[in-house]
């Protein structure tokens, strides 16, 4: 830095507006100071941080959000399924024995032809039963 720079810096007229003590005094009086000491800064930072974390939604957040609706829906679906199943058993009782009997025949070592015959017989009987029922 040269003396010229220093001289210019020292003597240049400042553009900074003058303070107006009367207007400034009135405004300060009416507005008051900023209550910086009244603020609990740690608590405020904690609030902001918690709010930001709450805004982010992890995968379990969606589960949490939907569980109130999902649980009653699942219960209703389960109840409906059970009702349909019972109704199905009551209207087609032969269906209950078809599959287990065929499986037990195969497991017991019955020839494949016998198992097939048994299966077709079961199906035919169920169909016949159904026709009878409808008639």
């Amino acid at each position: 830095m040269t003396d010229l720079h220093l001289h210019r810096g020292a003597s240049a007229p400042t553009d900074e507006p003058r303070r107006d003590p009367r207007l400034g005094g009135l405004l300060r009086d009416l507005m008051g100071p900023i209550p910086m000491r009244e603020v609990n800064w740690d608590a405020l930072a904690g609030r902001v941080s918690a709010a930001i974390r709450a805004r982010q939604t992890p995968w379990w957040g969606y589960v949490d959000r939907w569980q109130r609706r999902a649980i009653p829906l699942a219960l209703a679906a389960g109840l409906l399924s059970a009702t349909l199943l019972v109704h199905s058993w009551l209207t087609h009782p032969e269906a209950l024995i078809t599959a287990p009997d065929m499986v037990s025949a195969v497991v017991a070592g019955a020839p494949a032809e016998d198992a097939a015959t048994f299966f077709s017989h079961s199906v035919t009987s169920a169909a016949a039963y159904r026709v009878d029922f409808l008639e």
Partner: protein
Amino acid sequence: MSPTHSPDSFDSSAADERRATIERDAALVRRVRDGDTAAFDEIVKAYMRPVFQVAYRVVGHREDAEDLVQDCFLAAFQYLDSYDVDRPFGPWITRIVLNRGANLRRSRARRATEPETDAVSPAPSALDETTRAEARAKLEEVMATLNERQRMIVTMFDVDGMTSTEIGERLELAPGTVRWHLHEARRVLRAALARFIEDEP
């Protein structure tokens, strides 16, 4: 004269400080964008006080100002992708405060005009209570006619004692622009509050 005390070195030192702040903030913002939410806590801690100062001047009530601070940091977090990391973070969040604060102040206008009961006591007033209430009502009325930028500039300059350069840095405005807004705001305020200013001893 020591070289460290010359005006040029002050300017240089301030510029270095600004650059370092921008770099620090940019690094923090990048970390947040990469999923490190804890980095945003550091941003909050760094800017909480200046943001509160502006928020308080906008809404005029401590609790509202705290709510506004929280709201603005949340908005900043949400829209962080739109923040240009090559620019200072302070003016960006200050703009958020001014925009959101204006909405909040309008919605809570009545409460904002009430005197702050838990604030630091102001200096003893030269005005009696009735005149003071009148002056406050008039101030509120005339402040509402100023735009948000002028209101903030005149408050920062005449109430908080900041310089036009400091205000310019805070609001990312050229000092000349700050001075022009200050001039306009003072002209309106002086005309509206002349009676109260003249009444003062």
